[in-house]
Each structure stands twice: as structure tokens, then as C-alpha cells.
């Protein structure tokens, strides 16, 4: 459970940092008066969607951290763990996902420049490469299954399938949001909205890349 506890500690630090800006030590009954006196502690200017995504990413981190905790505990608790040879496809897949994330970064730049054409291109590239990654993962599964590494044969295999599947599902969910963003580029959406949309997608993409790298590290470790 070390991994999840580390995560909780990190989140707690963030929470404490935020709380420390909320005048928690002040005596509110002495502070009667209009809000303007306490600028900075009323609800801030960050869009709700961004905060929501931030919180959601915390939830997803907790989910994966728990899986990672379970992984390491299961690995050390019994002697039947036999690491499986990682299919070579994972490496090209990683590169594809990295490119995907890069493309999303490019889209962020494009939307800020107001460059509609390259925004569309960048988004399409990002989405298509993410899709490619998913296909690649499926093929990696196939490789493993052909090699006889079935799900139930060993906990290492089971975790491999479980973690990759879960990561894939999250990415798939991201692709839904991506689809909505693409549709928006077709319509005339206010620039601020477009930026927000693209930013959220990009943030999610970078995060999914991070999660994938963490999973990869875990798989390499054992």
C-alpha cells in the first residue's frame, strides 16, 4: 500500500496548500462585510471544467495507484509470480502515444494562435495516433496470447491485461471528449470555448501518457 499512501500524501499536500490560502485561521465572525475585502478567497476564476478535470485526474491516479499497490503486494506475497516477456510492440506503441500527446500540445499552440487549419490537423493527428495506440495494444495482446501467456495462467499476465485494458478504456473515454472537440472545430465556437476544450483534451492526453509510462515502469520492474 506504499504507492497509494504516497499518492494520498501528495494529494494531501496539495489540499493543504490550497487550504492554507483559505484563511482557515481567521475568525470569520469578526469579518462581517462585503466580499471584496477578502479578495482571493472567493471562488476563483479558473473554469469549472478545468477544476473538474483536475479532480477527476486525482481520482484516476488513485485508481491506478491502487492497482499498482495491489500489483506490488501480489508480486511479493507469493512465489508464483513469473514476469512475462513484454511484447516488443509496446515500444512502438509508447512512441505513438508520445506523438499523440505531442500533437495535442501542437493543437494547444494552434488554438491560441487562432490557426483553425492547423488546429484541425493537430487534433486529427492526436486522435488518430491515440487510436493507433489502442490498435497497437490490441495487437500486443494478440502477440501475448499467441505466445501462450493467457490471462489466468499467472498473476503477472492477469495484471498485464487488466492494467492495459483499464488504461485503454480511459483513453477511449478521452477519445469521446476528443470527438466533441473535433465537432466544435467544425462549428463556429467562441475562441475561449475552443481553447478550453483543446486544453482539457491535451491535459488528459498528457496525463494518459504519464499513466502509461508508469504502467510500463511497473511492468518492467517485475
Amino acid at each position, binding site marked *: *500500500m506504499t504507492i*497509494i*499512501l504516497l499518492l*494520498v500524501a501528495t*494529494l*494531501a499536500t496539495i*489540499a493543504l496548500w490550497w*487550504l492554507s490560502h*483559505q*484563511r*482557515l*485561521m*481567521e*475568525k*470569520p*465572525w*469578526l*469579518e*462581517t*462585510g*462585503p*466580499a*471584496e*475585502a*477578502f*479578495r482571493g*478567497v*472567493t*471562488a*476563483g*476564476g*479558473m*473554469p*469549472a*471544467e478545468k*477544476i*473538474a478535470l483536475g*479532480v*477527476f485526474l*486525482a*481520482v484516476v491516479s*488513485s*485508481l491506478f495507484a*491502487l*492497482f499498482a499497490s*495491489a500489483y506490488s*503486494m*501480489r508480486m511479493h*506475497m*507469493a*512465489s*508464483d*509470480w513469473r514476469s512475462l516477456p513484454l511484447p516488443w510492440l509496446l515500444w512502438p506503441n509508447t512512441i505513438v502515444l508520445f506523438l499523440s500527446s505531442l500533437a495535442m500540445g501542437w493543437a494547444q499552440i494552434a488554438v491560441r494562435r487562432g490557426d483553425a487549419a492547423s488546429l484541425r490537423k493537430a487534433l486529427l493527428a492526436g486522435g488518430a495516433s491515440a487510436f493507433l495506440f489502442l490498435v497497437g495494444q490490441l495487437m500486443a495482446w494478440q502477440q501475448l496470447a499467441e505466445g501462450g501467456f493467457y*490471462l*489466468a495462467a499467472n*498473476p503477472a499476465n*492477469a495484471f498485464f491485461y*487488466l492494467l492495459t485494458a483499464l488504461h485503454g478504456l480511459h483513453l477511449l473515454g478521452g477519445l469521446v471528449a476528443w470527438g466533441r472537440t473535433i465537432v466544435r472545430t467544425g462549428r463556429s465556437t467562441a475562441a*475561449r*470555448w475552443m481553447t478550453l476544450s483543446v486544453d482539457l483534451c491535451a491535459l488528459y492526453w498528457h496525463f494518459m501518457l504519464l499513466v502509461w509510462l508508469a504502467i510500463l515502469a511497473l511492468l518492467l520492474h517485475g
Partner: protein
Amino acid sequence: MGEATAKPLDGRGHAEVPEDDLYHATSWWTKYVFSQDAKVIALQYSATALAAGFVALVLSWLMRLQLGFPDSLSIIDQNQYYQVITMHGMIMVVYLLTALLLGGFGNYLIPLMVGARDMAFPYLNMLSYWTYLLAVLVLMSSFFVPGGPTGAGWTLYPPQAILSGTPGRDAGIVLMLVSLIIFIIGFTMGGLNYVVTVLQGRARGMTMMRLPLTVWGIFTASVMALLAFPALFVGAVMLLFDRLLGTSFFMPAIVEMGQPLGYSGGSPILFQHMFWFFGHPEVYIVALPAFGIVSDLISTHARRNIFGYRMMVWAIVIIGFLSFAVWAHHMYVSGMHPYFGFFFATTTLIIAVPTALKVYNWVLTLWRGDIHLTVPMLFALGFIVTFVNGGLTGLFLGNAVLDVPLSDTMFVVAHFHMVMGVAPILVIFGAIYHWYPKATGRMMHEAMGKFHFWVTFIGSYAIFFPLHYLGLMGVPRRYHAMGEMSDIPLSTGELNALVSVAAFIVGFAQLVFVFNLIWSLRHGAAAGGNPWRATTLEWQTPETPPGHGNWGRELPVVYRWAYDYSVPGAMQDFLPQNQPPSAQATRSAAP
């Protein structure tokens, strides 16, 4: 989704939407069924949760019949007994308490109390409810599948949970796990809403330290739930894999009834860690909203500011953090490494300190108050009694070595029913009597309310207090019959019978409550906008019940904290949060 513009300049939240932009219900269906209005969703959540709770209550009667009159009146066999306790426990904890406190009260109160027009993401909010309903339906469907619901106990410990020695191992356990997974997905949608609305939707002037404690409690509980439920999700998914796909996450090599099974190497203790990493915070997920609500009930009906508001906020936050570091106090005798016992006993007893401070502050709020013994106040007082009682027995169970004889006995059953069964339920009742006038415009019938209170409070105490002593004598929990026990006097049979009688009386009193809910809808006295003369924003809405968008054209602006009761020099004994400081006010605005 709540698509709106950010208005950083006036510091107003993003979730505050100009009224014209608001989604407006156009037909009966979208107004009452597929509504995106947090208030309607709240009522849907509450109604569904109460219905589920009623099922669980009926199940508890079956158990009490069996336990109280094992030979004459028992109508269930041991298979059914296990199915019944499992469904009772899981429904009560997850589908009733969590859903009602967060989905019901959270949805109703957060937007109103922070001064927002609605939740930040109304569409997601609606999805959350329908997902929850689906989870409930999946769970209930397990009563009708061959083999019936699972009898694995609400803790669902493998290996037993998925082996054939346990009833409902074919379909029941699968439906249970699937239902939990759906519930967690639905809750995550709702929880994001609650958190973001508190962070972002607050009205002008509503600083965090001006929030009523109800919002603090629900907010902190939501954050905790968002982080803790994934643990149950992970456990459930992996257990489902073990059950359906033959993996060995939790399943060691086993010889079941003489037959070797195909599993090997898995660890049942791993599941316990996952379960309790969720399960312990879950206790506080239920408790913190109740803490918050009860603080507001006491303060309002004692006409006095909550004593030590800052301490109350800090305590909520500290309890929230600490409760992630105590989970293994459920596992002292599980076979985990014994050195963990030192750590978890210490953290567990440390958490008792902020909890005790909360209790002190509740009773100190009564001190020199102007106490109105209204029905909500009665329930709040009842809560203090049962919560203190259950909290104190927690000091036995948390203190590793004292838990050795007591764990998994009726002492535990008595403890958690007092502290997380009866106590939050009393708060829920009090809260319903308190906010019913806001939601419907009518008061609930007071005499019926008092009757409901006295029978429920005294009755529940009479049910659960004696059970501690069965536990001390060594009666294990989850026994459908004590059978012959060498060390136990025969008279315990009558003790059990008395407890069962009390349980029936309490159960039937709930019918009075349900009747009151329905009857008052039509015949209750008209309530007016602020019958309790309370300060918080939800009582200051232009309409009662609040209309769509809550506030009419003008959003409220907040000038003071939530507890300006009986302020010296003020005309009335309460100053609403949105009342500007007047000339006669002695205290001036801080720079």
C-alpha cells in the same frame, strides 16, 4: 454540461449561470423525470435511497426474527440468513447512507447553501442519478436470480465469497460486484459535481470560512469518497476476474470440500487491504456529512452560534486526512504483519481526539443557548447520545489488543450500528424534518415527529446497547443461531428476544414517519420561507420551494458567516448570511 462563461473579475463562480442561459425544463418528463435541476435530482436520490433503505429494514426484521426466536418464529434458514445480512449491510451502508447523504442532501443543499443556481454540471448530475438507479436495480435483481443474492457478508471476503460453500455464488456475487462498480461510476460523476460546485460555485462573499458546516462536511466527504471508492472498484474488478476468468489475484491454492481448485498463490489479505482502504474512509464518508448537518441543526435550534467553528472545520479536515491511515484497524486478527498493530492502534486513537472535540463543541453549543426542542433538535440530541456511545466503544476496538477478544463478535455489530447506523440515521431524520419545509413549503406534523423520535431513539438504543454484552460473552457475529455455547448463560436467548421486540417496534415507527412524509405534503401547516429563522442561504430564497435557478434574478451576496445567532444588539436573534452589515452593527468589516 454547464456551459457558461468565466467571470474572474467579480470573483464569481463559473457555475453561476445567467438565468437565461439555464437549461429550462420544457416538458413534464424533463421537469420531473429526466430533470437536470439539482433539487429534483436530490429528491430522486432521496426517494430511491429511502426505498432501498426500507428493503434493508425489512431484511433486518427477518434477521431479528431468526435471532430472537430461533426455534419458534424463524422463517429463514441459514442460507437465507447470510443472504439477508449481506444485502442488509451493503444496502444500508452504500445504497442508503452514502447515496442519501451525498446524493440526496449534497444535491439539495450544496447549491442552495453556497448560493449557486445549480450544480456545476447539471447534465452529469442527472447521469449520476440514473447510474445510481441502475446500480440499485442490478443489486435488487439479485433477489430474483437462481441461487439468490450473495451471502458473502457485506465485506465480501474471498475466497469464501466466490466459492460454493456460500449462497449466491453463481449469480448473486457477480451482480453485487457489478452493481458496486456501477455505483462507483455514478458516484464519481456526482462527487465531481459536489466538489467543483463548492470550489467554484460559491456566491459573492461566500468564503470557505463562511460556509455552513453542512457544506464542509459534505465537501470533505465527497473528496474522500472520490479517492476511497476506487479501492473498492479495484477490489471488485479483481474479485470479478477471479470469479469469472479464473485469475488468482486473491485466491490461493484451495481444496474445497475435497476438490482441489485451479487457483494458486493469491492473497485473501490483499483483498482485505483493498476493501478496508475503502471501508474505513467510508465510515467517515457517512459520518462527516452527518457531523456537518447536526452542527447546523444544533446551532439553529439552540439559537446560538456553533461553538468553536474554526475547530470544527479543522477537525473535519484532519479527520478526513487521518481516516486514510487507519484502515487496518479492521484487520488486527486477520493475519497481517503484527507490527502494523502498533501503528494502526495509534493512528486510530489519535483520530479520537478531533472527533471528541467535535462532540464537546456540540454540547458546548447548548450551553447558554436558547434551546428550542423542535423535532430536528430532538433528533440532533439523539445523535449525540448514540454517537458518543458508539464512538466510545470504538476506543475498545481500535486499541489492537482489546480488539482480539472482541473483533467479529456482536460487540462489533453493536458498535458500528450505534456509530454509523443509528447515529447518521437520526441525523438524516432530523435533517428531513428540518429541510422538509424548504423542499415542500409545508411543515411536517410535529406530534407524529415526536412520536417517531422517541420510539426510534429509545428503541434503537434498546436494540443495540445490550448487544455489546452478547459480544463480551463471545457470541460471534454472523451466527444465525447461537446454538449451544459452553460459556453463555441460557438467559441470553431472552436478551435476544427482547432486542428483537424492540427492533419491531422501531421498525413500525418508521411507518409513521413515511405516513407523515406523505400526509404533510397536503395537510402540513404552511411553512413560509424561513420557519426556523435560520441564517443560512437556503432559507433566504425568494420562493419556497425554491424555483428553477434558486435565486430569481439576483444572486445572493454574502456578508457574514453562517452562525450569527443571537448577536448582541441585533433586532432579531438571527442575521441571515446575505444581510448587509447595518449602521447599528457594532462590529465593522475587517480591512
